[in-house]
């Protein structure tokens, strides 16, 4: 009695936007004709938040971690109880991906260290008491519909890094004299396009061994009373190797990774934000870094 279930989505990329309907087929494959008590398909959207034990303390993290809360949950019966014929049966379905209430915003799919927003389709084939039910789930990805970038957000972000601009320095004497100028093309970046900008090492009295771009996500959990903020690196890209030429503009260029990123999200109970670190490592292995908050949008 082997019976398998599969959910095949119509879109190869499995990306859906809010307001669209998720369509596809449920494939039931059975060796012999089998009875069942109905097949249901459930669309689930869950946001789970976990407090970091590091910043909030172990006990608090367990106590305070709120339960995963549902963003969408709707089910539909694709087949009434009856029999499945032997062989392959395809049952088409279509489920609308619509925001149910104003409090339940459909956030973008996101897999982070502490925050996870996960959408899936779950198919369940119920059977009589004697036999086990058959389950199958299939993840799909929710992305917001691309909007247009406002003009005023497209402003260049100039920066200048000098020993004086550095914060949080323990021993200023050990920092060599240097000046790095540059700009990011914007503070807001569409995810589909690379991060761009320019960087010039105007002067530096020490040799440089590497210049790197670090993309960091910042996850903030919790609400008013106790919130934790955790930063973790997603991607590190080297843009300068060795003692780069002084006075030549290096391109700042980074393609956003597909996983681990989503549009910058601010929800009542959590925040997902991104930062860019420009890290300059000197030839004595000392490094200086400058952080830029950036906003990622679908566009």
């Amino acid at each position, binding site marked *: 009695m082997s019976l398998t279930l599969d959910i095949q989505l119509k879109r190869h*990329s499995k990306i859906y936007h809010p307001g669209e309907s998720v369509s596809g087929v449920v494939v039931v494959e059975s060796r012999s004709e089998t009875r069942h008590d109905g097949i249901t398909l459930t669309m689930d959207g869950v946001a789970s938040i976990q407090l970091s034990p590091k910043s909030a303390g172990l006990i608090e993290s367990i106590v305070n971690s709120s339960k995963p809360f549902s963003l969408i949950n709707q089910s539909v019966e694709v087949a009434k109880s009856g029999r499945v014929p032997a062989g392959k049966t395809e049952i088409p379905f279509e489920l609308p991906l619509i925001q149910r209430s104003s409090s339940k915003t459909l956030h973008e799919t996101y897999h982070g260290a502490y925050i996870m927003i996960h959408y899936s389709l779950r198919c369940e084939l119920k059977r009589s008491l004697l036999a086990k039910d058959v389950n199958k789930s299939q993840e799909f990805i929710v992305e917001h519909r691309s909007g247009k970038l406002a003009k005023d957000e497209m402003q260049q972000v100039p920066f200048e890094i000098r020993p004086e601009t550095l914060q949080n320095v323990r021993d200023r004497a050990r920092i060599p004299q240097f000046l790095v100028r540059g700009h990011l093309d914007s503070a807001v970046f569409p995810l589909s396009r690379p991060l761009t900008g320019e960087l010039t090492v105007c002067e530096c009295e020490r040799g440089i061994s590497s210049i790197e771009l670090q993309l960091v996500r910042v996850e903030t959990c919790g609400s008013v009373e106790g919130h934790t903020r955790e930063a973790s690196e997603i991607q*590190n890209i080297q*843009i300068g190797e060795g003692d*780069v030429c002084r006075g030549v503009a290096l391109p700042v*260029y980074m393609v956003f990774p597909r996983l681990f990123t989503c549009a910058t999200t601010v929800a009542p109970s959590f925040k997902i934000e991104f930062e860019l670190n420009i890290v300059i490592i000197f030839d004595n*292995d000392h490094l200086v870094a400058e952080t830029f908050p950036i906003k990622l949008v679908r566009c």
Partner: protein
Amino acid sequence: MAVVWKIKDRQWGAEKKHLECKQATSHPLQGVRERVLKHAEPSRDKKTKTAVQSNVVDPLSSVLDGPDPLSDLLGAPDPLSSRMLFAGSQETDKMIEEEVSPTDSRHKTWGQYRQHILSNFTTTGTLTFTSSFLQPSDSGVVKTQTAITERHRAQGMSGSERLRARLEQMDTLDEAGGGGNTVREVGGLTQEEFTHRLVALRKELTQAWHSDQRVKALKIAIQCVKLLSLSAPEHFYPSKFILVMEILDTFAELVHQRLKHKFQIENFEGENADLINLEAQETARNWFYKVASIRELLPRLYLETALLPCYSLFDPEEAETGLGRLSRMIRGLGDPLIAAYARMFLCRMGVSVAPTLNHYIAESLQDFLHALKQGLWPEGEADMNMGEDRDALAARVFGPPLQWMMQCLATRAHHSHLQKVLHQCEEGEGLGQNLLVSAVLATFPHNFVALQSLSITQLIAGCSTPGTSQHDLLCSLGRCVNQAAPPQSQHLTLLNAVWKLVTRIPDTSHYLTTAGVWLEFTAKHFSSLEVNTLLGDVLKHLGGECSPDHLHYPALLALISTALSHSTDPHSLYSMSNFLGILSVFQRDSVGAGAGVTRGVVASLLTHHPGPLTDPTLVQHLLTLSGALHDSINALTTDDERRQISQLIISFIRQVNFGHDFEQQLDFYVNARAAFSNLDSVLVALIQCVCQLGVATWRVMRGQHSGKTAAFVRACAAYCFITVPSLTATTTRLRLYLLSGSVALLNNCLGQGDACMKAAIKEVVEVASCEESEVGGQLTDVLPGLVNNLSSMLVATPDPPDASPPLYLLRGLTNAVRSHPWQKDTDIQCILSISLLHAISAATQDDLPYHIHSVEGNDSLYGGDPQVRQEAESLCSALLEDIVSHMQGLNGVQEKRCGPLALALFWCMVTWCDLSQPPLASLLSRTWTLLSRYLRPNSVKLTKEWVSQRSVQLKDQVLVQLVRECLR
């Protein structure tokens, strides 16, 4: 029974047949000449041989002119070895040939670069190889390390840093657990082992790809590129680059093929086209995402560049913008060497992806220059190769990438872009400027360089820095303007500007090379006067050292031939004082100069001299030089060389012509004989020339010599008579005696003629006793011809006044032939005897068949004296007896040889004998019997027809009778 020979009187009038003249449409020798030329063509590539020379030297020997083809091959690069080098990478070469088709001959393809780099940049030092894909069986010092140790920074590690370090550690552990692979570093490898490892990796990459482990393939590619991030040892870096490029090419080709395949499916299926197209794009994007997230700059750069053709599969624009971005990204590479080679690779891919684009190349060049301005490797850090100078090393390793970039630019950019590059040169300084200028000269179109020649000259003047030396730059510039001339108005300014620099070149050999290149320019565009001035400068340079170094002679020689071959008016050049000055440099020390150089000088002088040599000074120079050439021949000289030198000298001698000043001409020949006494073929040519001179004199005087000319021609004859005995080859001596004897007789120098003839007769004996190899052919082939010639000459030669029995010379020859101990197994004596029968019979006719102009023959001297005929008949009878006894002696197997002899004798008798004599008639019939027995029926029939025709024509009753009786 001895048969007595009776000579019949010939009726010349009755026998005379008129020849019909037919108009010929083609020259009879034409075909021969053409074939000869066709054969000669392969050896044409030698500079020394040109049309001018070939009309002096006879066409047949010109085939043999120049070094023989076998020794020619020795000089050429071994075709096998060059093949071998290529064999390793034929597939890549094929690919590359498609992508770059150089328009300029100086431009090299990637394959050529590859070969050049691999053979020029090698190291004897040890190398380190880091890879996680090495086979465990690898020998050498294996030190397992975790990838992070080098990046491990205990202090000052930020939170994210620590996290990353841990992640990396995890990765490594993961890899170690999964595939048993850890990053291993193998040190102390030789270049060969290093290369071997890379080749092995390439194989593994292909294997991994085909076994669906594409990520592993990508990892291998990345690790290989990482090898390039270590620039030391600098002198090996270019080779390392090429080796890694091969792996990258393989990888890129695999990815490209896969994507192309996916896209092709889309083209076939109409319905699902969109879906599959999307899928293919998705796959492509996946590749790009994977590559874009490579942490290190260098592998990311190289892989993105390598995958550029894949971009253009679905969006050509993306590839084009990518080019610009990548070119800017290279700025992030701190080491100028690493950056330069990355640019080289980018340009190579860029050319194939977007052939029309060039802004990125210009940008790259600018960055390159900028990077060089910031200084190279810190002093003492670069790994020196056997004491190579730092700047020289830099010039060497930076050369290929720069030239490649310039070449890419030069083939597609507009002149205005090139102009910009030139401006960059002006802004540049030090090594960068130097490199740039040399690359400009090496790759930019000739006509562009020609237009900008003045400003480039200024640039060169400013380039006193290390790198490519100034004289090399000047040479390159010179070669460019020699190819395409700058505007007329700039010629003089340019020459002045350049020559100012050339004069300052301190090293003489460099000076001479550069001067040679610019001399060509001068010769092409200016008159001989300017060439003379330049040569004067060269002389001044050489004059400083009292005896110029022998090393400079080849350069000087090159100078002379360039001046001659490119000059617009070579004739006037020969009389220029400084030109002759240079010649006298050779002359002063001609022995030391070495035969090769002197030969070159002589050859180029002869080749380029228009028309015959008439200037006595020049002739004197040439004579001295050729004399030196002659003196250089010793026991070790090969026959081939000897032949070539002789050929050269002969063509020189034949080219000398003083017009009507015959005495000077003879003087020259006398000097030449003294100078070239060791070369037989030269002496032969001299004798022939003198004979020619004698005949020319005769022609000028129309056969009537005055006292003065008579003395002159006697001098000529004496010259020949004295010169001939010094030759070693007997046949040549015989021929030349004959020639000079007949010329002497023609000129009415009877004494000299007789002497020559007597000597010739003696020579016949000499020839007869020679070995066959000395004669140059079968004795039976050579001697009869010579004896025939001699005897027929003797027919017209008058007897010397003091000879008592008539037919003095012919009798001498007869005695010689009869008394010589001939080899028994040959018929040669018989053959010679028959020809003598002919000659003697002819010589006793009352009216000789021919006379020498204005010389009285024996017929008028003796006036039909019966003693002559008596003498002749006794001689003939003796000869006849010899013949008959010889023929009777032939028996058994040898009997067959009778046939031809009988035929010859038969003809002789029919022509000359008084057949009314019964003994002769019976001898004739016996001869006929022999003849018809041993000859082929065809020949017999032919003979019969001819005899009957003759009998009818002459109405000779005896012959008619004969025909009726014997021949039936």
